[in-house]
């Protein structure tokens, strides 16, 4: 994928290298390609169109969530409630997606609206209360799970319309809708982060909040925007997941927040804020996807997979911090 490549050498090369760890992103790309190559050598089933499609489809939900969490982490925050938001928005959408009730836009809009409100609520409480985002979103994570169970009365919501099920399960010109949506969301998020005023403000807030405030940046607004974006992207993921499994599951999305945060961190987003790219996050999500797919193909049980995944998260951050130390 062309967008997965680091920026081409230009006048801004230096800034990318120094600020966003171009070496780090190259390293990630090389690791990713290396693993793909190894897997295609070990198992012939890996490098097939069918399997690659499976990987990207599996990755897409996590990647969408990771895009949202990347905005948030760049501002120096964190969002633990996105897994719960996947469930709430999925259940909310499913409630309006039974056949012959409403046109398909209705569940989609309701799902997105639910995510938007949920995310905005996170942002509102965080900016108003000055309670750390970790605590606030830990609370809303539990609230969200409860809401999903209340809305669904604790039962999965099935019997959804074909047009709704198409959203996450269909194909456009032979390409799974999930992949199309992923690409569109990636481009949208990248542009927002790199080319807009609000995107620049995100880096500033995460880089030095006090100085950002003194520079006249509306800190509260920036935070409200990133948590709302996190909610919207979680809603998108929730709708796609519900559509794909053709059921609104109140228990869906458990632990998704951790996978999303892992993808962002592996992709080079610093948890202390101020750095990160969408390209890195996408690569991080792909890397996680390829490794778990490879381990599946190699018949490694899921217990071991968890151990491997944890080791990779730590390894990625250790490599990154070593890289940083070398540069200083």
């Amino acid at each position, binding site marked *: 994928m062309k967008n997965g490549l680091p920026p081409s050498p230009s006048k801004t090369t230096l800034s990318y290298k120094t600020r966003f760890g171009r070496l780090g992103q190259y390293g990630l790309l090389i690791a990713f390609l290396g693993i793909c190559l190894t897997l295609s050598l070990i198992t012939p089933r890996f490098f097939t169109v069918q399997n690659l499609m499976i990987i990207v489809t599996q990755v897409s939900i996590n990647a969408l969530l990771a895009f949202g969490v990347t905005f948030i982490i760049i501002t120096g925050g964190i969002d633990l409630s996105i897994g719960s938001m996947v469930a709430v928005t999925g259940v909310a959408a499913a409630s309006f997606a039974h056949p012959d009730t409403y046109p398909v836009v209705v569940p989609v809009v309701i799902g997105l609206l639910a995510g938007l409100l949920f995310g905005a609520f996170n942002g509102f409480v965080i900016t108003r209360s000055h309670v750390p985002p970790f605590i606030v979103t830990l609370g809303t994570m539990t609230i969200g799970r409860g809401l999903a169970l209340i809305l669904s009365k604790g039962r999965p919501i099935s019997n959804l319309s074909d047009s709704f099920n198409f959203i996450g399960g269909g194909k456009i010109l032979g390409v799974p809708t999930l992949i199309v949506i992923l690409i569109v969301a990636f481009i949208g998020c990248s542009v927002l982060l790199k080319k807009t*005023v609000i995107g620049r403000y995100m880096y500033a807030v995460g880089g030095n909040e006090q*100085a950002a405030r003194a520079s*006249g940046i509306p800190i509260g607004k920036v935070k409200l925007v990133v948590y709302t974006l996190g909610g919207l992207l979680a809603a998108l993921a929730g709708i796609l997941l519900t559509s794909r499994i053709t059921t609104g599951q109140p228990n869906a999305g458990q632990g998704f927040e951790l996978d999303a945060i892992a993808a962002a961190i592996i992709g080079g987003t610093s948890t202390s804020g101020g*750095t990160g790219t969408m390209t890195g996050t996408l690569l991080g999500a792909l890397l996680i996807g390829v490794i778990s797919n490879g381990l599946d193909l190699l018949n490694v049980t899921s217990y071991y997979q968890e151990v491997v995944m944890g080791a990779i998260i730590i390894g990625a951050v250790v490599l990154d911090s070593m890289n940083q130390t070398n540069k200083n």
Partner: protein
Amino acid sequence: MIPQAYILEVTDLTKTFSGIKALDAVQLHVRKGEMHALMGENGAGKSTFMKLLIGLLTPDSGEILFEGASMKATSVHDVLQKGIAMIHQEMLNVPELTVAQNIFLGRETAGGLFRWLDDSNRNKQAAELLAHMGVSIPPDTKMKHLSVAQMQMVEIAKAISNDVKVLIMDEPTSALADAEVTILFGIIRELTQKGVAIIYISHKMDEIFTIADTITVLRDGQYIGTHPATDLNENSLIKLMVGRELDRLFPESTTPPGAEVLSVRQLGRKGAFSDINFAVHAGEVLGLAGLMGAGRTEVTRAIYGLDPLHTGDIHLKGQPVTINSPQDAIRLGIGYVSEDRKQLGLIPALSVKYNITLGSLSNHADGGFIRSQRESTAAVDVMADLQIKATGPDQPVVYLSGGNQQKVVIGKVLQANPVVVLLDEPTRGIDIGAKSEIYKLIHELKASGIAIILISSELPELLGLSDRVLVLAKGKQTALLSKEDATQETIMRYAMQP
């Protein structure tokens, strides 16, 4: 006096960062019991040099002899063991621990069956140590309750308790009042009499000539020379440091002030200041004088909307205005350069360009989308105007010297086209060359009709730049002096008033 033996001999020390020589074949020879000043502009390589000495960095080449033996510094701990300690510009201590615990940090003693920490004994030792230095700080006070000066004393006590032989002090007086400086100098003299060598970094000329025996000068990472302090005077030293004669430090003011731009009435903020009244005119510099804690910074912070006001009102060009946030202030045309550029001025990880345009980004954007070309042009122009030295607009601002960082902050503020600029200690911690450039800049701003409120603790600077001086003492204004009436003596008299 017979010259003592060299305790520290540094030859041809070289250190390169990503291809750029930060230090190039630097020499330093320090005798036992010598007060050795290391001088140079910011960016001359003093900090890098000291980091090499204390083992925070490893040199590319060159040799360090300590007591005649080659010192291969492997860690800060090693160097400390040998007897070289540094008192940092930024205090490094554990605020939640007591004075005694900080002094003996890493050397805790324990006894008894359960290895209880022996705090009472350590408290006693710490008290003796501090009493010996002539300072009275209770050893069981938590570090966070101390003043900067007291913390400094504790740092020195820590170094002495470590049986220090070479003590490096980086700008130790930058946060001290005069009385505290006197105490510090007394301690330094006592240490040198005991044979401790001091390497002293400072930008304050008068200090250097008061206490230094020998002066080594660095410039742009190069070794310029070592001279007995008695062979130099202020002018010859500055010449060595900057490599050229400085222009007249304070340019003559020619333009008369214009119309009133900003006025405040009965400004008050609980616990900080009250009943502040003044007006500042176009093309005028109003100096704010006062001792530490007089409320100067607090007044400017409140005007800029960083802290809320409790009483009073602000008029801008005759119109009453409400300022609840820096955003409001910037929109109204008020610019602010903080005394603390690391905390409030810069986003360190972002580039010079991004820092410059940060406060005025919407001017370089259409519909929320940044026009990169426009942004770059603006940043490059500012860099040229203010002579900001960087590898380019994309260099992260954290790698710039203090003076250049300050220019970036000023550039950012000017980008928003302010009518009033609040400058809080604009030359703190920057070298003489950069200082004179900032003075020139202030004059250019004046000439262009901007009203300026200037805070400076350096009275010659304040007097040289200000058209009028407002003196504050303990949160109240005690005098508003015209240029003719404002002398160091009158200002100090009003600043000390109750």
